[in-house]
């Protein structure tokens, strides 16, 4: 069991139908995504703009949305082959979420401590009340919060505090994987580092892997070991974070990195202009072709597969097509 990969996703697809029964259009929110998180703890970031499918992907991994096809294996078990009851019983022991909006993460009519204690008793399986309280207070220590804070409802606290409580709750069952969907996007800039540093520390000291989902490349740079850039449902580039930031290969990645509002260098040149969204999902060929400054004839005809290059980075772009193929 110890040798199983923490997370293994193979050819994952999620199709949504919009419009009516007769004239409805289908679109692939997640289009053939594969990735593996091995046994050694790491922070894997999925970066993309809103609507690219990263949240849908996260929810499938969390067992909340059912995939159309493909498999998701956590510690060797295909979670979508389990019954709903089994999945809801087994999954929280090994995977836990942190959501974007701290104030939506907890029922505003309840004290946060009820969640923490319940997790200790029902997910971590602790019978004794005293022991449960112990575990809860240890988790609060990990996120550097005083114990009284949990005794309130979410609305009585600040966003940063509630987000830390979310993380504390996630820790209680000692999961191998935490899926964090935009965990700091709604937190003040000066408080984000505190929370991201907690993620780093948890990886190093507790051996927890993270799937960190964000649209913010700067925070992605700050904590990622590996990173995947997602565009309209597919990974367009994936690999070691440092390598990709140093030398982004896919034109979309380059566009994203150029567009970050930096605080040390001003933007150069003009912003790109572009058009609608849904059509691109359905078109054949590379989904980025209509916005790509390097688009070739081939790009509009055929969709490039994700190819692994010699430096370890995978790119889905015809620019890097090996000549012999």
């Amino acid at each position, binding site marked *: 069991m110890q040798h199983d990969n923490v997370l293994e996703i193979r050819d994952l697809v999620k199709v949504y139908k919009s419009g009516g029964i007769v004239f409805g259009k289908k679109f692939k929110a997640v289009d053939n995504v594969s990735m593996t998180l091995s046994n050694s703890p790491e922070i894997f970031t999925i970066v993309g*703009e809103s609507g690219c499918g990263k949240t849908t992907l996260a929810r499938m991994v969390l067992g909340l949305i059912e995939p159309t096809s493909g498999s998701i294996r956590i510690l060797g078990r295909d979670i979508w082959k389990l019954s709903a009851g089994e999945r809801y019983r087994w999954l929280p022991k090994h995977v836990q979420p942190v959501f974007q909006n701290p104030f939506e993460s907890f029922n505003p009519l309840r004290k946060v401590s009820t969640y923490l204690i319940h997790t200790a008793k029902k997910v971590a399986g602790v019978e004794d009340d005293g022991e449960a309280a112990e575990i809860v207070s240890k988790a609060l220590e990990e996120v550097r919060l005083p114990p009284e804070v949990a005794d309130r409802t979410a609305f009585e606290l600040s966003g940063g505090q509630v987000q830390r409580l979310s993380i504390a709750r996630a820790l209680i069952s000692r999961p191998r994987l935490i899926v964090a969907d935009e965990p700091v996007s709604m937190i003040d*800039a*000066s408080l984000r580092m505190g929370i991201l*540093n907690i993620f780093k520390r948890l990886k190093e000291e507790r051996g927890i892997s993270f799937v960190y989902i964000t649209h913010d*490349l700067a925070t992605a740079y700050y904590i990622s070991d590996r990173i995947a850039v997602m565009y309209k449902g597919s990974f367009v580039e994936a690999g070691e974070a440092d390598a990709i930031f140093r030398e982004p290969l896919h034109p979309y990645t380059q566009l994203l990195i150029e*567009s970050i509002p930096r605080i040390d260098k001003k933007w150069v040149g003009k912003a790109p202009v572009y058009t609608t969204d849904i059509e691109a999902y359905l078109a054949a060929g590379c989904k980025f072709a209509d916005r790509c400054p390097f688009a070739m004839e081939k790009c509009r005809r055929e969709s490039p597969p994700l190819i692994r290059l010699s430096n370890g980075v995978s790119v889905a772009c015809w620019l890097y097509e090996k000549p012999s193929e």
Partner: protein
Amino acid sequence: MSRNSEVLRVKGLFAYYDVGGLSVRAVDGVDLSVGQGEIFGLAGESGCGKTTLMRVIYRDITPPLRFLSGEVRLRVRDGEEVDLYKLDQQSLMKIRTKVISYIPQGSMSVMNPTSRIKNQFLEIFQKYGRVNKEEVLRQVKEKLQELGLSERVLNSYPHQLSGGMRQRTVISLATILNPSLVLADEPTSALDVVYQRGVVELIQKIREMYRTSFILVSHDMGLHYQATDRIAIMYAGKIVETGRTEDVFKKPLHPYSEGLINSIPRIGGLKQLEGLAGLPPNLVNPPAGCRFHPRCPYRMEKCSIEEPPVFRVGDRTVACWLLER
């Protein structure tokens, strides 16, 4: 800055919220000035009062917000200034949209979904008297062309446009009558990085072509660095530092500015940042003396007793005892 080129001068502005018998001191003694053709950034984190300050400058006062005292002097035409708070309702209505325009937060989501864009433009003109439809549309098309926006937008409904396009339309609507000053509250926070850049470019273009001044409110420091000429940093209802954007970023003088700027991750930068300790203060009962002192790494005795005055350093201002010399 010479008086002649000032478009807005705010002096001693105080405005509180009355909630449950208590006063929330959202704008607690603010002075600032904006020059002609200047893009002025107002930075700060959640709860610092920057949105309230915008509303007060626009004189959008509705209970529970209460205006206490202060002046908002706007230059109406060459050599003529008015204090918005001394005007009667009629004169105020005349000035709005023609001289000063306000784009509230999230406005791209509140455009009338059942009305085509061209009608929304017409409505603005109609507020100022009977209009000749063709004439108005011609002017609008011309303006859109100058700004580099497509005419097709006019016949569309808001939901048919992408987020970035909608926001740029909102900005065009707000500037169609060529106001001298536009107040834009978080104009890009709901947008993805790439769209954001387009919006900033539009604002800069309007400034170049018509010498329009902007006040940009945002919590995104990167946006300020890219888009603004001068910047004011707000904390707990007060302005703690102002100056040219490049100067403030290169060498922040107020400890809060420094903490804020240093907690922003940069690509290629440090991977060990700390962020600020503590929480933003309660505006009902703010800390005595300097409001930032509980979180300040440089605090001295004096800071917890007496509020620092505003010190001038060249063309910058800082409200911090460290500057007393």
